[in-house]
């Protein structure tokens, strides 16, 4: 008995040592500025004044009582949820195709990654051209295929601008999703499929009964990743629409930026950040649970 116990202790110690480098890295580089920001959210901290007095929850009251915050939250949630769902569906489809026995599989697996390698900052200006209402190739494509008669002004139309940005996000991020899901597919043992085939299960059945359940943790992980990535998305919004037309694409990231660097109110900027973190945690915990539920054997 005593031997077993000490072995468990030894194991735990080894486990802790394994986690140590990660803990150190994260606490050094992220926690300090993070705590500083949380502290700032309780200050009347304007870049334009020398004094930064403690103001209790005044920033929180101001942010939570402003329509701008809820509007931006709504824009962000619409954007994030749509993008993540579309990416999951397309990602699964692509991963399944690239997992099956097709010709030039390795080549396709590589070229599908290219969109992700194009720097976002360059992608966004190229899409400015593609979407351009007067000269854009998208209008040309849609007109010549007979889908529209009048040229669309995608980024200047309140009902289309967000969709335009989503399109770029999906284009840019789905490749990553695909590769992650593909990695997950590789992790499913072939023997299960073989057993299922012997049992006479069809492709559709084995997808829903074997593939999907086995992929669940990986899918939850990538969904989580994409949720956080898109919540943080700034470059696309900033360079494509700058939050416009009017406020149609003013996401939380743009609102935060504006508050901190155009209104110079670092206190309120940090406050939006703290509230944002809680919203995001609320979203993430269920996904996290799915991803890391203890495996039933």
């Amino acid at each position, binding site marked *: 008995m005593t031997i077993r116990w000490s072995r468990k202790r030894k194991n735990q110690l080894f486990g802790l040592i394994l986690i140590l480098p990660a803990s150190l890295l*994260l606490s050094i580089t992220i926690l300090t*500025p993070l705590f500083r920001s949380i502290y700032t959210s309780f200050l009347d901290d304007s870049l334009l004044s020398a004094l930064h007095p403690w103001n209790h929850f005044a920033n929180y009251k101001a942010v939570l009582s402003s329509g701008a915050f809820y509007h931006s939250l709504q824009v962000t949630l619409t954007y994030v949820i749509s993008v993540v769902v579309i990416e999951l569906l397309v990602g699964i489809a692509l991963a399944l195709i690239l997992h099956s026995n097709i010709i030039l599989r390795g080549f*396709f697996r*590589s070229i599908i990654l290219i969109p992700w*390698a194009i720097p976002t900052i*360059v992608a966004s200006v190229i899409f400015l051209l593609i979407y351009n209402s007067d000269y854009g190739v998208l209008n040309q494509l849609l007109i010549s295929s007979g889908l529209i008669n009048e040229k669309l002004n995608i980024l200047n139309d309140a009902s289309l601008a967000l969709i335009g940005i989503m399109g770029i996000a999906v284009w840019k991020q789905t490749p990553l999703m695909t590769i992650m899901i593909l990695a997950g597919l590789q992790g499913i043992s072939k023997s299960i499929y073989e057993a299922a085939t012997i049992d006479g299960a069809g492709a559709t059945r084995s997808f829903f009964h074997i593939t999907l359940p086995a992929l669940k943790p990986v899918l939850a992980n990538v969904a989580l990743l994409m949720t956080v990535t898109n919540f943080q998305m700034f470059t696309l919004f900033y360079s494509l629409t700058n939050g416009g037309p009017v406020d149609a694409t003013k996401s939380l990231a743009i609102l935060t930026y504006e508050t901190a660097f155009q209104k110079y109110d670092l206190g309120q900027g*940090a406050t939006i950040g703290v509230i944002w973190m809680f919203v995001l945690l609320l979203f*993430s915990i269920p996904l996290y649970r799915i991803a890391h539920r203890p495996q039933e054997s």
Partner: protein
Amino acid sequence: MTATHIKRVYRHFLIYGLLIVLLALFLFPIYWIINVSLQPNNELFRFPPRWLPSHLFLGSYKAVLSSADFLIFYKNTFLVASGSTLLCVVVSILAGYGFSKFRFPAASLMLVLFLSTQMFPAVTLLIGLYSLYSSLHLLNTYTALILASTTTALPFCIMLMKTFFDHISKELGEASEIDGTSQLGTLIRIILPLSTPGITAVSIYTFLVAWDDFLFGLTLVSDLNKRTLSPGLSLQFLGEFSYNWSGAAAAAVIATLPLLVVFLFLQRFMVAGLSAGGVKE
């Protein structure tokens, strides 16, 4: 027999059809970037746009390739992205294994804590990050950029590695330990070879996170000799008065080509899955 045959043909038709449609959607913008890069800027303002350059214009490529600054940005980005990838992969393998194999009372809480470090908007962290790196005397160093990108990618890499290790049967590790292999030896010799798809995915992810980084590169580095690609391209091509679309596109094409080779090489590691490892489920 014929029924299944027809079914197979039908299936192939479906798979390749879908593949072609999806590839067309994903590669069209790439084609357009190449198309833009081969035209001078003044040719871009026309409707209908040119599907192919009216004549082969290589001016943007010449300008990019002869720019010393671009080569510096490129080298810096490569260094930072490779450094971040190595650091992140090793650290996340260790931590992912730690979380997967050993149960600590606060493990779940710790993972959530790791995760939440990514949930704060980077914009509001900028001043804090800048002061931190400044007080560590790390401004204008590759170390700063490597650390910044690594910590961005790390929480997900850890979770993903943990998920992969969870898949690998515990019995395998225990069996090997009974054989007298050390715990670290088990991880390296038994577990890692079975996790190549996961490791590859995590490497590609980290590499591209560092590759695409704009905000950290912009903020933590101001020395032109340490500038990375995204801020560098923004500085060179997205100016005060106009955008140099053609130049930016050419730079993106040149920057992406070598990556394609890396992907072609790396994707081979995606093939080896658990199926090859003879794991009993």
